[in-house]
């Protein structure tokens, strides 16, 4: 008894989505803002849009970018990691010290840093999942504890000197096809995480966990394993960030260069569309946000705006960007926005 009305009710086949729409409203607003910033500072300053300045911006944004990418992943599954900056500090110190101890062996330094990063990440995950500590509190604690750890290991001073080593120099200053090596690393990591999140079942499960953890559990997803794995990933990527920090500054830095990165990473992820409640967000948006913030900061500096005004301008622009974005969504103005 199939019915005459069946076709009325049946769904239309998935419509073709215009390339623009598939970018997402969030991303469109960010691209708009980016074009605006580039245009504005490009007009104000001849050198702003030069290749060399774009390289400078990209390089400066790399470390934040790496942390923002993994921050996005953990936010999507409903968590948060406030300790990313401190983790990078630990890795920076460890990489330089292991390098020195191993008789200027760069690979030893890198391996040690990544290993420690992995351990720290797993520790975070285990504390959260099995210790039942809220992610915000656990990683707030990590923020202090890992910073202290980095300081203890290094006695609070910059450690070692790596710029006599080819590998570190290559990481810090080398270029491939005109693009700094650091930027390539960001591209590779971001692409890998993007593919993981968007095109594999692992990524889909991550979204499911963040969207509704009860539903995810009942769908047979081993939530605990996923969460620990995501924090472990953060640990490893934060270690990479720490190694790049060492390569850039020439020595292992316990706090300098890594302090405060957590807020930048969270800002970028949130501006890029990741909802702090979990289940929403994407690497594309986050990278756009990183680019926007990087171009803005560079532009303000290039224009010689004083540091105080820069603070005000950054805050104000962040708000304006989101307001415009939300305006376009036409969301109802009631209660707390997501």
């Amino acid at each position, binding site marked *: *008894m199939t*019915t*005459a*009305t*069946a076709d*009325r*009710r*049946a*769904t*239309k*086949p*998935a*419509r073709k*989505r215009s390339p623009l729409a598939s970018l997402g409203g969030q991303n469109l607003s960010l691209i708009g803002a980016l074009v605006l910033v580039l245009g504005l500072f490009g007009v104000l300053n001849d050198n702003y849009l030069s290749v060399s300045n774009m390289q400078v911006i990209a390089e400066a944004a790399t470390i934040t970018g790496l942390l923002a990418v993994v921050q996005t992943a953990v936010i999507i599954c409903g968590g948060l990691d406030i300790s990313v900056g401190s983790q990078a500090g630990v890795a920076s110190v460890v990489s330089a010290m292991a390098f020195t101890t191993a008789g200027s062996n760069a690979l030893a330094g890198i391996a040690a840093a990544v290993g420690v990063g992995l351990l720290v990440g797993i520790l975070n995950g285990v504390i959260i999942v099995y210790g039942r500590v809220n992610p915000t509190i656990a990683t707030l604690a990590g923020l202090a504890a890992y910073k202290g750890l980095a300081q203890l290991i290094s006695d609070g001073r910059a450690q070692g000197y790596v710029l006599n080593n080819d590998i570190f120099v290559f990481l810090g200053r080398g270029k491939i096809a005109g693009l700094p090596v650091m930027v390539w690393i960001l591209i590779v990591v971001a692409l890998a995480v993007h*593919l993981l999140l968007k*095109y*594999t*079942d*692992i990524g*889909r*499960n991550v*979204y*499911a966990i963040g*969207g*509704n953890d*009860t*539903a995810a*559990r*009942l*769908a*047979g*997803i*081993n939530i605990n394993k996923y969460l620990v794995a995501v924090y472990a990933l953060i640990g490893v990527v934060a270690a990479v960030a720490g190694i790049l920090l060492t390569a850039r500054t020439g020595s292992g830095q316990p706090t300098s260069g890594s302090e405060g990165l957590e807020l930048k990473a969270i800002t970028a992820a949130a501006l890029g569309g990741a909802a702090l409640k979990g*289940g*929403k967000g994407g690497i594309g948006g986050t990278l756009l946000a990183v680019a926007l913030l990087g171009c803005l900061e560079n532009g303000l500096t290039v224009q010689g705006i004083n540091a105080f005004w820069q603070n005000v301008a950054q805050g104000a622009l962040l708000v304006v960007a989101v307001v415009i974005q939300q305006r376009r969504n036409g969301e109802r103005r009631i209660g707390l926005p997501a």
Partner: protein
Amino acid sequence: MTSPGTESPALPPPTAAGPVIAIEGIVKRFGAVQALGGVSLEFPAGQVTALMGENGAGKSTLLKILTGDHQPTEGHLLVDGRRTALASPAEARATGIRIIPQEPEIIPHVSVAENVYAGSLPRKAGRRLDRAELDRRITADLQRLGFDKVISPGLLGSDLTPAQRQIVEILRALTGNARVIAFDEPTSSLSDTEVDALFALINNLRDQGIAVIYVSHRMKEIFQLADRIAVLRDGTLAGVLDAASAHEADVVRLMVGRDLSTLFTRQDVATDRVVLDVRGVTTDAVRDIDLTVRAGEVVALAGLIGAGRSELALALAGDQPVHSGTITLDGRPLRTGRPGAAIAAGIGLAPEERKAQALLLHRTIRDNTTLVVLERLRRLRFVRRGAEREVAQEYTDRLRVRTPSIEHEVRKLSGGNQQKVVLARWLARKPKLLILDEPTRGIDIGAKIEIYQIIADLAKEGVALLVISSELPEVLGLADRVVVMQNGRITGELDRAEATEEAILHLAMADDLSPTTRRPTPGSTPDPTTDTTADTAPGASS
């Protein structure tokens, strides 16, 4: 008799039967989706107007417009014959319009009393909360409305069962000066006892001159309660019938544009191969459960609310730790306490609370449908997009989910269509044992038949089915065997021939233990004054 739900201020006296509220040419669009396409309808005082229609026909949307929660795209509202714009639920409330929404909205960390009177808490001078009055009011209201055995005022919002949450919403609607009360599928999670209480209440409201709007997919209820039946179809008014003279078939024809044949088309296809074998299983909520389900067999779990059926289902699906006993699936012992293991072994559970337990509201229909079959759709862990779309489209069509496309976000679907997405997910998985917990909750009559047909088809394919349902006709129509639970235990088993409503109810209330007696009593529950925060309130040791 005093007015239900409130003591003061009293409800207005019955007015001459004229429309308290009416709508004219209401159009509502959500982006490209048109939910209502120019509906005009009036709701007279002292009458129960039933609102019927398929899933996604626009019933909830219409109610949300009446209560100021949504603004119409076109058209307007008339309150007492005057054009009125209701900008917010608060304004609608002040006008005397109330709704019991389809999905109860509960505040988790506060007491039932505060949940009910939120927004109009009794207070003393200086905005001090009057806790004594609050306690008195909730106790009195629960008693007067006959819900005092079902719900204890000291419970926290987060502790409530679906039925209790529904009751909280009902109580909310009855506080203050109500003139129009809309019920959006209030019985979908209530059992018969509460349904009876509710009907008495609604009849009472009608007698007091309140305009009642009643949305339900249960035909029986409609003819029991309604004075008029308004049928929506595709966002337009298909017709208004006089309930006294109309027949079920008329309503159905208006709803779906055709006649529907018999509801249940069961043939006996049960085999002897035991798929599920449960021996002496005890969990936090159920004790000594012995249960078998054979391939091709449909076993219904019946019982009153809180009998432990859902908890048993969750235990089988690996979500509740099993303290003792064994579960065997297809002859192989099941590793308990792990949903992943249960699914891998071939168990599928479509849980009862779709929003809390099943749906990813911000993801698409496609994502939601394929969540448990991704591992079959991947190559090198990459999900094959085409195959995925195919699967999602197939089950979306098969269940007739009303949506513009499978890339639509699930939160934008109507309640019944969301339920279909949950079912689609588990049908796509093709499990050996499919557990359906209240599968037709909130589903329209056409789709119900569709689901019954699917259950029959699955049985024919040799799937073992365990169906939990609080609708006795459904239990009787579907089941080869009915297993009745009460208070966490199985109290009896009836085969198809033995099963009647009386027999089931008898077993469900076997030792004359009302299901409510084991619910926490007021004295042993958290004091409502202390629970919302970790602080001590002076004198809170009662």
